[in-house]
């Protein structure tokens, strides 16, 4: 990262590197896989490094996550454009959990939740991941995703209902 001088490099290590976990976690959930997440998170961090001179304090985590998110969307557009046009489908999880294979896979909560979360369209998934896993405030989520707080709330609401019904359905052992 020749872009950074010694002083900037120290600042980068202090401010940005503590959020590498957050960067990877967001990429992992947006891309639904560790291998792709590692590549894209790495690219995002290199980009963060290049843009670091333009970062004048403030919330370093939100700043980094914004770059991670944009890098993920660019990657998705190029490699899996269909996923971006995925629409919110209240029925989707029912169909998904109705097949015997997925029922067998979804043997515990963790797998069920992972499956339900990955079934959400990316724009709902990211809001939920940022809130529930990353503990971001609405204001931070709005800054990272560039969507207004009202939409953050309504997306959270729909995503949560979907996840909850996925749990409730599978704990009954079968899908209606």
């Amino acid at each position, binding site marked *: *990262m020749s872009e950074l001088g*010694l002083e900037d490099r120290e600042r980068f290590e202090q401010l940005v590197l503590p959020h*590498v976990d957050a960067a*990877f976690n967001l990429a992992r959930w947006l891309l639904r896989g560790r291998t792709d997440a590692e590549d894209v*998170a*790495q690219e995002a961090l290199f980009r963060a490094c290049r843009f670091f001179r333009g970062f004048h304090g403030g919330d370093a985590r939100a700043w980094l996550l914004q770059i991670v998110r944009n890098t993920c969307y660019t990657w998705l557009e190029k490699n899996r454009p269909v996923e971006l046009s995925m629409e919110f489908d209240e029925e989707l999880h029912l169909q998904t959990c109705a097949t015997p294979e997925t029922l067998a896979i979804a043997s515990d909560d963790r797998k069920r*939740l992972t499956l339900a979360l990955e079934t959400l369209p990316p724009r709902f998934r990211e809001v939920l991941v940022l809130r529930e896993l990353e503990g971001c405030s609405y204001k931070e989520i709005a800054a990272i995703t560039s969507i*207004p707080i009202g939409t953050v*709330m309504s997306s959270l609401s729909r995503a949560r209902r979907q996840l909850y019904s996925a749990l409730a359905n599978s704990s009954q052992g079968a899908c209606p």
Partner: protein
Amino acid sequence: MRCAFADSLLQGYFDGELSDRRATEFERHLRHCVQCSTELVDLDLLRDRLQLTQLYEPATASLRRKINARLHAIAPTTPASQPRLWHWLAVAAALLLVAILLGRVGHGLRGDDYQAELAGEIVDAHARSLQLGLITGIASNDERVVKEWLDGRAGFAVPVRDFANGGFALKGGRVDVIEGRAVAVLVYERNRRPINVFIWRTREPDTSARTGSRQGYQWVDWRRGKMEFCAVSDANPVDLEQLHQLIDSSA
């Protein structure tokens, strides 16, 4: 039907994002709203499960290694960076000049600035609604049904008219948040393209239409009868003007 607060205040309350005053107000609502109380329990349960299952995935060791390797691999300054510095300084100077010029132009337009900024935000909301597939909160071509749904949520009497005869079929409505306030949105369709008409109350006097475009979307904004209207679409600008005339003549 779900309680109107379930998608907004309930989430805010659950996440501790409401002001003390609004939280107290919402607690009062909770006492007699069975739906919200039940959903609050579900939300709690879901959060417990999410925490128990530990879905958070920290960075892999190899990612950390790669980043550290890259960070420490190259010496911070090399002689080769000298010409590049001049190059970047030249670019910076050019950008500064552009910024100054834009600043001047912007200054001259200050009267319209706010309007353009607002329209920009509305265009963003329109584009987002398409991306998110949240085109309608209520899907109906029945003026009365849409009006009833919107009035309660937007907090004012929203003029809802179907212009299917004029080529603008009413598809439904929703409530969006622009600059922190709830705004009613009517959704029309013209040649299979959605047109969103954002409506909110204003104290300003009537104005004639102003138009503009942004990110490939056209907008027309006007005020009439203490209400401001902003129609947005990627349809032909002539269509938007026609819809403006229809709305104005029906008022």
